[in-house]
């Protein structure tokens, strides 16, 4: 049976070491908003033009299926670009365990550790490398491939929507963020 995964989202203050969010949910979709509370409705917490969203600390959790090896993870914005004056920033590619984004209590300040410009839809093949580990997105020990059939977690796949003063009011287009992987 094939490996499958769910998206999960960490929110709230930092807890533990390495840090993770106090709340972990399994959303079917997410919205960038002026709040770090998972249950806050985005329309009640709009991002004022010129300001930024709180970070969205997503990750993938492989929960079901049997697989011997999982590898070649990639993460990218793959469909529907943003309008002018909106910039989506995201995590850098994993090249070492220390490359992973470390959880911080979400805020609306521009996160300088989100270096990749994800505003434009790109081919998934030029997305950033994602690594996997058996403990949690925050944990050390991530590797490009894992030889196990138990639960696996990606590193944090964090994004932040940054806006300029000229950003138009209203909802953004709905965009697609893709997590791709190989399994055998």
């Amino acid at each position: 049976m094939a490996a499958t995964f769910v998206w999960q989202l960490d929110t709230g203050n930092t807890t533990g070491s390495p840090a993770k969010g106090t709340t972990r949910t399994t959303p079917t979709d997410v919205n960038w908003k002026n709040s770090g509370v998972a249950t806050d409705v985005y329309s009640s917490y709009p991002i004022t033009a010129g300001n930024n969203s709180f970070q969205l600390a997503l990750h993938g959790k492989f929960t079901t299926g049997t697989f011997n090896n999982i590898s070649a993870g990639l993460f990218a914005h793959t469909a529907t670009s943003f309008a002018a004056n909106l910039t989506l920033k995201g995590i850098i590619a994993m090249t070492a365990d220390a490359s992973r984004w470390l959880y911080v209590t979400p805020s609306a300040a521009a996160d300088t550790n989100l270096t990749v410009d994800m505003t434009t839809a790109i081919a998934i093949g030029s997305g950033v490398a994602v690594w996997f580990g058996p403990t949690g997105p925050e944990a050390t020990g991530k590797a490009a491939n894992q030889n196990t059939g138990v639960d696996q977690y990606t590193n944090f796949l964090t994004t932040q929507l940054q806006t300029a003063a000229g950003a138009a009011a209203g909802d953004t287009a709905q965009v697609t963020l893709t997590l791709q992987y190989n399994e055998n």
Partner: protein
Amino acid sequence: MDKIIKTIFCANEQVETTHVLSASPSGEVCATCEVCGRVLKFPAGVSRKEFDDLVAAHQEANQGQVTVESIEKTLAELADAPVKVKEEVPNFTDGSGIDEPVE
């Protein structure tokens, strides 16, 4: 007031372009690409060295992106001529577009 210009790699253009520097309402440094209008933000109160380091990290992290738009443009250039594809829309009003269940 003269524009304050900085040359920064643009992820959208995939080359270094001139960016106009300004401040956001919260004091963050905004760099707006003069070619495509893409805006980059840097923390309020960033020093020159921190700024240059962040600009360098930005370039390293964003070189080599292949946009969906550029792929579609390439495919269009390779094609003989544009061909209009007629979409077949199933007719659900009279049942003809609904598959019969397989026994």
